[in-house]
Each structure stands twice: as C-alpha cells, then as structure tokens.
C-alpha cells in the first residue's frame, strides 16, 4: 500500500515539476510548483517524518510561494505573451547537465558503502529544545541578519 502511494506521489511530483518548468504563464507555473511541494510533503509523511511534512507545507508551499506570487505581482510578470519560450540552445545544456546530475546522484546512492548515521524520530519538543538551546547563537545571528537585511532593503528602495 505504502509503496503504491509512494510511486503515485513521486509521479505526481515529477510531472508537476516538469510542468512548472515548461509552463509559460508564471502564475500557472507556481501552482504546479505548489502541487509538487504538496506531493513531496506527503512523501515525507510516508517516511514517518510528519514534522518535516508540516514544515514543507508551511514554509515551501506557504511562505516561499506567497513570496514568489508577490514578486510576480510586483514586477508585473503575469503576461505570458511577453515571455519568450526558451529555445533549444537553452534546453540542450540544461538537459545535459540534468543527466550529469542524475547520473552522479544515482552513482552516489548505489556506490555508498557506509550506512547513514543512526537516525530516530524526534518530536516537536525535542526539535524546539535543539533549536533554541543548542543552536541558540545561530538564532540570534539570524535575527540580527534579518534586521540588517531590512535596513539594506529600505536603504536601496528608498525614494531619492
């Protein structure tokens, strides 16, 4: 049962991603991308990682996609007739590189001689403790970085 579900979800994800790349209309492309993220979230759930599934939905399908849509609105890209479809000159190198990366990934997976370090399922509590204690200093750095990113963005975007 789980296996069939996995293959269905994986196929849905792949197809949605291909459409997300080939679709001319950026808003449609984003809808395909969201579909792909949802399928990925379900796969994470199947792998007994419900938390990562939730993060996938909240962060990628939620926040990141809203950001994409926002940029498309702001830059007024919602006109497919303006966008030229990439020609063979763009497709060919992309496909060659894609094949290279796929081959490398397959080699990396099939040639691995070691088992991955032991993993276990952790709950949201354990995750939070690790996040705010073990990586406390990292959280502080990120919050300061956000502050200065805002300062920089405001400076560059301010009226002359």
């Amino acid at each position, binding site marked *: 049962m789980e296996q069939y579900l996995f293959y269905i979800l994986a196929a849905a994800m792949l197809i949605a991603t291909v459409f997300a790349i080939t679709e001319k209309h950026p808003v449609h492309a984003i809808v395909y991308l969201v579909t792909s993220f949802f399928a990925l979230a379900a796969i994470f759930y199947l792998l007994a990682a419900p938390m990562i599934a939730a993060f996938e939905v909240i962060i990628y399908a939620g926040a990141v996609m809203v950001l994409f849509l926002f940029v498309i609105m702001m830059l007024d890209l919602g006109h497919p007739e303006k966008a030229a479809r990439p020609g063979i000159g763009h497709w060919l190198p992309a496909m060659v590189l894609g094949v290279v990366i796929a081959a490398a990934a397959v080699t990396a997976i099939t040639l691995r001689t070691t088992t991955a370090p032991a993993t276990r399922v952790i709950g949201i509590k354990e995750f939070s403790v690790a996040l705010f204690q073990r990586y406390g200093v990292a959280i502080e750095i990120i919050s300061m970085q956000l502050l*200065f990113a805002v300062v920089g963005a405001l400076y*560059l975007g301010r009226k002359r």
Partner: protein
Amino acid sequence: MDMLQFPANIAAAAGVNFAAIMPEVILSVIAMALLLVNVFINSEQKAYLGYLSLIGIVVTFFSVVSGWGAPQSGFNNSVLQDNFSLFFKGTFLVSAFLTILITDQYLKREECNWGEIYPLILFATVGMMLMASGTDLMTIFLGLEVLSVSLYVLAGFNRANLKSNEAGLKYFLLGAFSTGFLLYGMALIYGSTGTTRVAAIASYISQNGMVLSNPMLVAGMLLMAVGFSFKIAAAPFHMWTPDVYEGAPTPMTAFMSVGPKAAGFAAFLRVFIVALPAMKADWSELLWVLAVLTMTVGNITALKQTNIKRMLAYSSIAHAGYVLVGFTAGNAVGTAGVLFYMLSYAFMNIGAFAIIVLVGRKGEENNNVSDYAGFGFKHPVLGMCMSIFLFSLAGIPPAAGFIGKFYLFSGAIQAGYVWLAIIGVLNSAASVYYYLRVMVFMYMKDPTEEFDWLAVSPSLALCLLLSVAGVLIPGIVPGTLLDLAQKAILM
C-alpha cells in the same frame, strides 16, 4: 605538525559563554546603536557616525587583544575564540577601520552621504568574525550570510550611479548562487557524518575510515571548495570580481577586496584543516590546480587592463592565488604565511584604494591608468605612498608583500611543492609589469592635469599613514607579526 587543534587549556563552557563571542557582541551592539543615532542627525553630521564607529572598532580591538592566549569556547562548541580566530578578527577590524577612514570623503564627494553605510560595514565585520570563530558549519554559514547580505548593499550603495547598482545586483545574484553551492556541500557532509561540528566531523571520519569512499563526502568537500573559492575570488569562480569591484563605491571595493577574502580564507582553512584532514591528499591536489589557475588568470588578465580599479580587481584574484599556494602547502610555515599575508594585504590594498579615492572627483572617477600621468610630480608625498603600496603588491622588498610571499612560497617548497612555488614566483614577476606601469605614468609622463581638486582630509591622511606603517614595519621587521601568526595556528 598539528595545526588549529582544539586548545587544551580552554576555559570550558558547553552552554552560554559570552566571552567566546565578546568582540562580535560589542561590535553588533554598536552597529545597532549607530542605526538609532542615524535617525536623529542631519546629513551634515553623518561623519560623526564614522567617528563613533571608529571608536567602536578600537574598543572591539581591545577586546580581541585581551582575549589573546585565553581561548574560549561556547554555545555547545559552535564558536571557538582561539588565537587563530583572534588573529583574523584583528585583520578584519584593521580593514574596517581603514575603510571607514576613507569612506566619509568619498560619500561627500559623490553626494550619497547616507549614514547607513557605517552600521553596514560594522555588521559585515561581525559576519567575518563569526566566520573566523565558527567551529560549526552552521555558524560559519550564517557568518557568511551576514557578511554577504551587508556587502550586497554596500556594493550598490551609490544608488544614483548605474554602475554601482549593477555591481550590487551582480554580486547579489552570483553570491546567492555560490552560497547555494556551499550550503549543498555542508548538507552532504552533514548527511555523511551526521554532525555539523568541524571537530566532530573529523573524529567521525577517523573512527569510520570507510566513510572516505563515500561519494557523498567527496561531493560535499568539492561543493564546499567551490563555495569558498567564490568568496575568495579564486579562478575559475572569479568572474564576478572585476565588474563588482569596478562598479562598487571605491572605499567599498577596498573593503571587499580585503576583509571578505580574509574571512573566506579563515573559514576555508578551519573547515579543511580541522574537519577534513583525512582527505588532505585529495584537497591539496585540488588546491594546487586552483592556486595555479588563480594566479595565472589573475595576472595575465591584469596585464591588459587600463582601468585601475579593474586592474586591482584582477590583482586581488592573483593575490588569492598566492595565498592559496600557502594553503596548499598545508604546513605551519605556509599557513602562518596565509595569516601574515592577509593582514599585510589589508594595509597595502586599502592604501592603494585610498589614493584612487583621492584622484577621483565628482562624476569623474579618473580610473584610467593614464589619468595618473605626472601625479608623482604634482603630489610627491601621495605619489610616494602609492609607490610603496604598489611595490608591496608586486612583492618587492622591503615591503610586507615581499615577506608574505616569501613565507607562502617557502612553505610550499618545504611541503615539496617546488613547481608550485616556481609558478608562483614567475607569476609574481609578471605582475611587476602592471604595477610598475602605474608608476611609469606617475613619474615618467608629463602631467596632463593640475590635480588641484585633491584635498586630503585628516582621516584620509591617517589612513595613508597607518597603511604605509602597516606595509613598511612588518616588511622591515617581520619577526613580531610572524611570531603572532605562528602562535595563532600552533597553539
């Protein structure tokens, strides 16, 4: 010879230990305070922000000096303030100090006198410090991000200037792309070893030797090398350098060519020497190729440049190559040479850019080498300063650049990389051509301009004075500084 080992006499503190990040804390508090002050003062008073940030840097420098010899670790070993990171922190503070000294005059001239530049410079410095003291891949990555985000804004700081905008955008796009490589590499290393602590990665690999045959680990190492190579502007990942250096405001070019490069080397050294010593045979071969490519591409392209900022951009690529020679050697002499060289490079390069700031004027940057015709006669003292910086960049004694190169190359010879040292020396000889060409224009051509717009502000004079001292004193008596560099890596 064990380098950069976890210090034995450490003041151990697993949890919160602010002593381990004291310089970072001081500097970021000052940066945030300056942001607040900036709101309340008018545009004539923005120079005060510069003075305040200079005071802040001096205070931070004292905290760095007082930490010397007393290593501190904290936050579950995600930061380690040892002598190695303190030496680099000193280098970053020196470069930020010299940069701020030349910033004010430039901003006034370009009529883009916004106070945000000083907090951003300080914050970029905080990022560099985190990169030097990070012993967790996560901290190193976040330090790099802090640094990069500030630099993207600084590169595009002159908003009215199209070239500056272009520089900011180009740096942002390529920088974000290269960060992806670095992060991918870190993720693969985490995936194959199960930890992000650099020391724990090394001990995992030494306990599970077969992990070395894991392609994931090798791919992780390669991707991280790509990410760091971008930050230090090593060929073939150097394409962004000339455009960004040319377009960015000149003081920011000076800053970018020195501080972030040193920070990139600090993190590069820490990760590769501490976390991946088991792969040293592999990565030193890789670095060998990178070093030769970087030196050669940088120098040969610099020969053809007529724009002095572009020329110094290619020269900074070449200098990354010389430093990579010392890194490739991987022994104590070469690595100490890296530290020594980055510090003296800060003095000579920012000094040269200070002169470039002076020669330019509003709307006319005078960046062409021919704009320097007769400069040495019209302004003998400034011409003399520029000559000292150029001699040092070319590696001619008694400047610090010569001593630095001497240690980098002798480290390579001691490690058996004789050919690498020979290629380095040949490259260094070729570089003399384009540095001396500026001097030929300065002293052997008749002046076409009166250079009457030149006004040396006190802060710029101080910058030149410090830079000349920083180039000549370690060049003539290198013992003290070299001793510090050796203590920094062997403690």
